[in-house]
C-alpha cells in the first residue's frame, strides 16, 4: 500500500525531506526541558526573589549555572522550533514567511546570547 496521495503521485514532488530532523529536535528539547523546567520552578518557589544577594549567590553556586545555561539554551531552541511551525502554518505569502522565519531565528539567537551573557557575568563576578 502506498501512503502517497494521488495528487502527490501526479505532482511527483515527494516529501520535503527534512521534516523528521525538525520533529526529532523539538522532542529532544522537550525531553530535556521536563527535568530542567521542574528544577527551575522549584528553585523559584524556594528563592527569596527580591533579595539580590541571595539570587545571585544561588545562580553562581555549584551546578546551578550549568543547569541554568542548559535550561536557557533548551528553552530558546524548543521555542524557536515551535514558533517556526506556527509561522509555516499561518503565514502563506512566501516573502512574509521568509522574513518571519528569519526574525524568529534572530530573536531567539539574541535571547539565548543575552541570557547566557547575563548568567556568566553574574557567576564570574565572584561570590560576594
Amino acid at each position, binding site marked *: 500500500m502506498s501512503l502517497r496521495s494521488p495528487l502527490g503521485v501526479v505532482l511527483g514532488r515527494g516529501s*520535503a525531506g527534512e521534516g523528521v530532523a525538525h520533529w526529532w529536535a523539538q522532542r529532544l528539547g522537550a525531553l530535556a526541558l521536563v527535568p530542567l523546567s521542574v528544577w527551575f520552578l522549584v528553585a523559584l518557589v524556594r528563592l527569596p526573589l527580591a533579595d539580590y544577594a541571595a539570587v545571585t549567590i544561588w545562580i553562581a553556586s555549584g551546578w546551578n549555572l550549568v543547569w541554568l545555561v542548559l535550561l536557557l539554551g533548551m528553552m530558546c531552541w524548543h521555542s524557536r522550533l515551535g514558533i517556526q511551525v506556527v509561522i509555516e502554518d499561518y503565514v502563506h505569502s512566501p516573502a512574509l514567511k521568509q522574513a518571519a522565519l528569519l526574525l524568529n531565528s534572530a530573536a531567539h539567537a539574541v535571547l539565548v546570547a543575552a541570557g547566557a551573557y547575563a548568567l556568566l557575568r553574574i557567576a564570574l563576578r565572584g561570590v560576594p
Partner: protein
Amino acid sequence: MHERPLSPHLSIYRFMYTMALSILHRITGVWMAFGLCALVYWLMSAAAGEAQYGRATVLLGSAPARIVLLLWLAAFCYHFANGLRHLAWDAGLGLERRAARLSGRIVLALALLAFLGTAYLLFCPRAGFA
C-alpha cells in the same frame, strides 16, 4: 524553498474539546515565547547590579506584571502537562480515542492543580516579588 509539511487546520472538523486542548497547547507555547523576553530581562537586571535588580523587582512585582507572570505560570503548567501527553503519543502510547480523551481531562486537572499550588507558593505566603 522547501515545502515543509503543515499541521491540519481545524476549521474543517466538527468541534471536540480535544481540539480546544490542541490549539491551547499552541497558544500557551507562543505566549511563553514572549515570556523568554521577561526571563532574560530579569537575568540582565541581576547581571547589571543591585540597583538595577531592585528596579526590575519593583517592576516585576507590580500588580499588572503579576497578572502577566501568573498567565505565564498557567501557560507553563498546561504546556508541560500536555507536552507529556504529546511525548506519550510520540512513543505510540494512548492514541486510542477513549485514552486520548481521558488523558486530556487528566492533563487539565493536573495543570490546574500545579498552577494553583505554584501560584500560591510564589505569590501568597511571603509576597514573592515585592
